[in-house]
């Protein structure tokens, strides 16, 4: 991995600016894969008994110090699996309204296979291994009417799938 940028921030980010910065001055990049996560209006709680609820905003909390370390380790693990050039991971914290951007992962490589796979891998691992917690506030917009989002089994399964397929390059 040639470079790694990790940023945990309250302010929004620009996908265009991040991509432009990743491309600037690098003639060896053949593939740039990015993922952007957004605040979705419909909650899915993962339990069959709870009805889907309308979400007005999310509150994102992290563990300063540990979260950055988690993200660094995830990027390094991706780098061991695929030939990567540059990696950018941005995660927002604080109050985020519906349709706002939460997370950005950008991975550049010489070829698409590594860029696609590493981007998906980093997101799957971020979901289950990075110290972030999400509180969901429902439609009324009242303070503290929210609930802490439960960890999803499907996210754990996605991470386990990568562990099974681990092969050193």
């Amino acid at each position, binding site marked *: 991995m040639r470079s790694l940028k990790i940023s945990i921030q309250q302010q929004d980010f620009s996908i265009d600016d991040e991509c432009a910065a990743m491309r600037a001055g690098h003639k060896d990049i053949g593939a740039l894969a990015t993922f952007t996560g957004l605040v979705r209006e419909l909650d899915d709680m993962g339990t069959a008994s709870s009805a889907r609820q309308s979400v007005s905003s999310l509150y994102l909390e992290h*563990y300063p110090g*540990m979260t950055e*370390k988690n993200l660094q380790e995830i990027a390094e693990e991706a780098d061991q699996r695929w030939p990567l050039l540059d990696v950018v991971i941005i995660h927002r914290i604080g109050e985020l309204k519906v349709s706002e951007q939460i997370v950005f992962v950008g991975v550049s490589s010489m070829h698409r296979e590594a860029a696609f796979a590493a981007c998906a891998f980093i997101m799957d691992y971020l*979901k*289950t*291994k990075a110290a972030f917690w999400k509180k969901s506030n429902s439609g009324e917009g009242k303070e503290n009417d929210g609930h802490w989002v439960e960890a999803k089994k499907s996210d754990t399964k996605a991470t386990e799938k990568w562990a099974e397929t681990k092969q050193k390059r």
Partner: protein
Amino acid sequence: MVTVHYFASIREKLGLSSEQVELPTQVDTVDALAALLIEQHGSAWESVLKKSSVLVAVNQSVASFTSSVTNEDEIAFFPPVTGG
């Protein structure tokens, strides 16, 4: 002194984000620290720290309840992560 951090739903349930605790010599594991905190604070801590889903970090690395702790360490208790 150890610094103990609480995050997310645990922080809210306890109404506390962090505290400093002096470890008696016999308290040398996360498990023993949890027992000490329950003894000092009571039932709210018991309901949170005895939950099977609670996770722990020692000095910002994922640890377990059998991990050792010493004064100066930074301990954190938190629920499963839900970022992204």
